[in-house]
């Protein structure tokens, strides 16, 4: 069907701008893992298997610091806990699909693919029927480029001068993804609260600060939402704000 191919290719195209951040990100990871003493094959395998940039970079840092293995695993898992939240928010759009899609697509849903997928699913002008092909296109091209840039980082990473600060491409990618997600006052408040808390909690062990800050940001978003949170809330006469 032409529509499937169309959606797949549109997903690939939607992911292309994000790749500009993923390429230096992958190279930074490849270089970091090499200097941590992780063998080439394992560094590359981690990009294929784990497919989560920030957790991979942190794993390399912890291995370099000779952290006990169990702590490395726990920290990376805690850092990836936000994927449970991603899973919960995208699940309603995927549950009608056959098992092969339901088990396959989530594997590709790392930050950069999830954000692109969610903005496509929340775009009501497009019919739901073939949207999963769009997500597949976005996820696969990201996976492919992520693995290729890891390989590039392994090959030439050591030759890149630290003064280039290539690692700064990591927060920059997240900034480029964040700003379009700030659609209203509530999401802006959620981001501000989470950002400030993540900073305050940065010294928490095992990177728990990022998870706690995300949860707190979600609560702040709910509180700032214009609608009352329960239908049973008492109705108070108050001046209506009109934009």
């Amino acid at each position: 069907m032409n529509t499937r191919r169309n959606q797949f290719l549109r997903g690939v195209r939607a992911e292309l701008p994000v790749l500009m951040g993923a390429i230096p990100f992958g190279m930074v990871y490849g270089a970091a893992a090499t200097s941590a003493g992780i063998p080439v094959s394992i560094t590359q395998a981690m990009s294929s298997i784990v497919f989560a940039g920030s957790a991979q970079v942190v794993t390399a840092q912890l291995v370099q610091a000779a952290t006990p293995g169990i702590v490395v695993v726990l920290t990376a898992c805690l850092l990836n806990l936000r994927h449970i939240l991603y899973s919960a928010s995208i699940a309603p759009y995927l549950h009608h699909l056959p098992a092969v899609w339901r088990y396959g697509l989530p594997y590709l849903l790392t930050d950069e693919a999830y954000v692109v997928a969610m903005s496509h699913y929340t775009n009501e002008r497009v019919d739901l029927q073939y949207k999963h092909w769009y997500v597949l296109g976005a996820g696969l091209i990201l996976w492919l480029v992520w693995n290729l840039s890891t390989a590039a980082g392994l090959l030439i990473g050591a030759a890149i001068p630290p003064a280039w600060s290539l690692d700064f491409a990591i927060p920059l990618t997240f900034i480029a993804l964040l700003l379009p997600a700030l659609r209203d006052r509530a999401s802006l408040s959620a981001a501000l609260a989470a950002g400030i808390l993540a900073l305050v909690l940065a010294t928490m062990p095992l990177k728990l600060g990022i998870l706690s800050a995300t949860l707190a940001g979600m609560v702040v978003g709910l509180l700032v939402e214009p609608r009352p949170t329960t239908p049973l809330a008492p109705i108070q006469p108050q001046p209506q704000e009109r934009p």
Partner: protein
Amino acid sequence: MYTPLSLWLIISSIGLATYAMRLVFVVAPSLQQMPPPVRRALRYVPAAALAALIVPELVVLSEGVQAVLLNERLLAGTLAAAVAWRTRNVPLTIAVGMGSLWLLQALFSL
């Protein structure tokens, strides 16, 4: 320090756990019957999670307001955020962010 076997074990465990976390709500329909407030709170996950990853990379809490605010990463990141806000253009955001970081690093090292 680590044997290759232990490293393989570490990355397989992380990979398996990460896949399970991405999968859980998609294949467990009973978990999809969430209370409405939880469902609405999930809409704020991208904004909150990304902000929580970004801010600690840009701001380093150190002594003195000036040292915190005149951090080249904070300045370059703020500029990149302004570009992202105005243009929604990912490559331009990254280019402006990297370019201004290099410029500021050169200026501050004078």
